[in-house]
């Protein structure tokens, strides 16, 4: 397929169809409305399922039902709507059901505002539903990458039988960029092994369930899931590591703010300051290993996020005290400028960064 100019939200919706998603369940909320609007037309054209549910709670439970039946299925929403989906996400994780959940994030807390923000790192990465579970979380920084990751997300969901999330900051959802949709081969899984597809005449009956009233049985279910999480950590962690050998300071940023960090790095270079970037593409699993291979010249890591400081907690865990980490954020929908974070980098370096 040739490159076409598409808005982020529409491009990732089209990617979902190309990925073989056969059912969408959602509820209107800004700034993700282009996704259900686009899919309401395209799913109908393709003879697929589109349902505008009565709430995000219902939508995620419809996803649970359709996934239980073996369908490739998705929902999308924005921050307050994702909050309502947490119960369903926990059930999906508990019952080992695959699905794709897209959150086009906005500023909070509460009703907050509809401008771009990254205040939902904790919501996506640390969960919000009950119980011990994780979900892979993708964070693209361009429209092209968003569509590539949609394909990947559906495959990872099926392969490991897990809900997968993608967080798209409001900017990426709204901006237009050239994009080429290249669906990779679909992973092969036999869903009839677990799906409640109403075929109990052809095989033994299947049950989809997260309940286990025996302590030891439930403990075992948890351990099985966590063994898969270890595989996901090993095989599915993605990041962009661009750190020069003589870097003095390293930015850590995800989503569109990582592009602002790249501009700041260019500004610093003009002033003779060598700076690098670690960009987590999966927020969970977090690319911890990148932080252990930083050159000795690095005096500080500067985490630039559109939040009061959320990802910085994972950066500090990864650094484990080896290098000091600082946070710079704007919130409420305000976005920092490249020179603003470049200045912050200089301020930190002036203070000396790393203590020796």
């Amino acid at each position, binding site marked *: 397929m040739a490159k076409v100019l598409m808005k982020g939200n529409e491009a990732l919706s089209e990617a979902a169809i190309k990925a073989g998603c056969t059912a969408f369940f959602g509820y209107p909320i800004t700034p993700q409305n282009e996704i259900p609007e686009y899919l309401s037309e395209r799913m109908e054209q393709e003879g697929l399922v589109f349902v505008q549910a009565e709430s995000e709670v219902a939508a995620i439970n419809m996803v649970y039902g359709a996934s239980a039946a073996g369908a490739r299925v998705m929902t999308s929403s924005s921050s307050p709507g994702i909050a309502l989906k947490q119960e369903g996400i926990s059930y999906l994780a508990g019952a080992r059901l695959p699905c794709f959940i897209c959150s086009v994030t906005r500023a909070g807390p509460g009703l907050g505002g509809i401008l771009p923000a990254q205040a939902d790192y904790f919501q996506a990465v640390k969960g919000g539903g009950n119980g011990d579970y994780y979900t892979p979380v993708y964070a693209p920084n361009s429209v092209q990458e968003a569509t590539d990751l949609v394909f990947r997300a559906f495959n990872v969901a099926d392969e490991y039988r897990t809900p997968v999330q993608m967080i798209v900051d409001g900017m990426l959802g709204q901006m237009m960029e050239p994009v080429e949709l290249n669906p990779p081969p679909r992973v092969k899984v036999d869903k009839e092994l677990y799906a409640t597809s*109403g075929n109990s005449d052809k095989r033994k009956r299947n049950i989809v369930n997260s309940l286990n009233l025996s302590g030891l049985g439930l403990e075992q279910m948890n351990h099985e899931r966590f063994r898969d999480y270890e595989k996901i950590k090993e095989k599915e962690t993605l990041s962009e590591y661009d750190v020069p050998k003589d870097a003095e300071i390293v930015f850590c940023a995800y989503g569109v703010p990582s592009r602002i960090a790249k501009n700041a790095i260019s500004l610093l270079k003009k002033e003779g300051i060598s700076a690098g970037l670690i960009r987590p593409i999966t927020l969970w699993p977090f690319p911890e290993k990148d932080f252990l291979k930083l050159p000795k010249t690095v005096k500080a890591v500067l985490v630039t996020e559109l939040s009061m400081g959320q990802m910085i907690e994972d950066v500090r865990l990864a650094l484990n005290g080896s290098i000091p980490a600082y946070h710079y954020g704007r919130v409420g929908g305000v976005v920092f400028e490249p020179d603003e974070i470049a200045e912050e980098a200089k301020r930190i370096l002036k203070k000396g960064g790393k203590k020796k």
Partner: protein
Amino acid sequence: MATKVIYDKSKGLDEKPFHYCPGCGHGIVHKLIAEVLVELGVLDKTISVSPVGCSVLAYDYFNCDGVQAAHGRAPAVAIGLKKACPDKIVFSYQGDGDLASIGTAETVHAAHRGDNTTIIFINNAIYGMTGGQMAPTTLIGQKTSTSPFGRSKKNCGLPIKVVEMLAQVPSSHYLERTSVHDFANIRKTKAAIKKAFQTQIDGKGFSMVEILSPCPVGWGIAPIKAMDFVKEQMMPYYPLGVYKDNGELTKLSGGEK
């Protein structure tokens, strides 16, 4: 001596023994559903959705595919399943706390969309599983563990009438209220369940049977007394009968007392 089988456990039920209390209505209704699914020849293509409540383990009992849903969300899970497999039979089995309290929105909107799914709704006027707390269907004056002085209209309003409410939703297709307090009514309940599933098989849309059902343990009375309670206390407030047939309101739903 040759033996002749005159009564057997339905093939629609698994071998697992029920965990329900003696005198509970859940087991009776499970048996009826299982028999109906076998008689209609759809057991193998049916998917059950169990609720959170005493019947949470229903997936263990129905001899077909089964999904366990979050509290109140069974109708949403059911339509997800049905959209993914439109030629299969999907039903949710729900209690009154599940359906008429936490899951009210999911229930009303299943009817509102005219989902081609079936709900079997067990109204036992109480939260059985959690130890006998007040439900939206608990009768005025009825004592429960969270209405120790009896339910009062002042604080809690009058008990909700679910089939009457859903009858007013334009897209609901077939709605009936029955009871399982005696044999004649158990037979009528089976006929209603059959009609509800037939509605779905015919692709006509949303069907629900509300079944008045005893909970002797939650009510703190003996099983025989519980059957009397259904007849004497519940039935006058929750009149039995068909409230919507073929998408049309019946005389009953017009407001008979």
